[in-house]
């Protein structure tokens, strides 16, 4: 079945806008990823060893979280990376990378 999740569309809407719009777009993406793949993802801001929640899923699956860094300031966390198809994961990070490096 073709995925209805359109990461590109959500992040295009957010590009060249503020962090609050990135949050809004990421919330939609996280919701859709959860609905389609039952994978919980959330966006965090990095302050040294301390990672602060910005947007995305507020629940998860009680398994060890894996942090994937977008750059030195932002990262995405999930306990369910294995549930997400590789191409979706790559699409997500490619677009997030473009976005956060503009902000």
């Amino acid at each position, binding site marked *: 079945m073709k995925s209805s999740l359109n990461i590109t569309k959500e992040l295009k809407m957010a590009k060249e806008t503020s962090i609050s719009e990135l949050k809004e777009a990421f919330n939609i993406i996280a919701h859709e990823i959860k609905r389609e793949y039952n994978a919980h993802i959330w966006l965090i801001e990095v302050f040294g*060893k301390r990672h602060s929640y910005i947007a995305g899923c507020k*629940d998860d699956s*009680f398994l060890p979280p894996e942090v994937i860094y977008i750059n030195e300031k932002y990262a995405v966390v999930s306990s369910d990376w294995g549930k997400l198809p590789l191409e979706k994961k790559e699409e997500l990070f490619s677009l997030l990378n473009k976005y956060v490096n503009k902000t």
Partner: protein
Amino acid sequence: MALGALFGLYDWKFEVMGLLYHTRDLERQFGIGPHTISFPRLEPAANTPFIQQTRYKVSDEDFKKIIAVIRLSVPYTGMILTAREPAYIRREVIPIGITQTDASTKIGIGAYSDRYTDQEEDRQQFLLGDTRSLDEVIRELAQMGYITSFCTAGYRCGRTGDRIMSLLRTGREAVFCKLNAVLTFKEWLDDFASFETKAVGEVVLKKEMEEIKEKLPQNVYEKLLEYYKRIENGERDLYF
């Protein structure tokens, strides 16, 4: 954000209401309440006769009421009881709902150096009620059936802000707390505990592991078991 009031400066009922209204305001304004609440009592100190004379001094009975009221009013928050309080009070109030405490505490200038073994009134802000070591306090907690957690996992994977509020309000954060308590307690027992404390601590760990096996999904228990064994084999800083 951590909230706290120094009790003994004014009527404790007013101070408790202040803490609770501050909590409600944080929830209303930001959707996130206090991460912790602390309620230190004034302690004897050099050249401060006010502390002995004040009519606002909080009795042990009222102190227990304060803790009970805060626990019931803000069920999601961490509650801090410090080494200001004597050991007998710590024993009594920890079961009421305390979640965080300290031990091996020294507050005098240079007090962690080997030269100072006892408290010295003129070298510190006030006198501590409980000067027991971390090993002694943890052993006593284990004898009471409590596991000690050294977990800081939440800060390192974004379980903060309104995400942790959501987990706390639904009770789901307790699952992470239990899993990470087991792993960090295991590390501490292996690395720092005395022989006696390790023996008591292992009994508590076993009980906690059995509870996790019974109550949590099989895949979570299996992952915990894997991490537990890796810690036993010398790996460190594994968390959920």
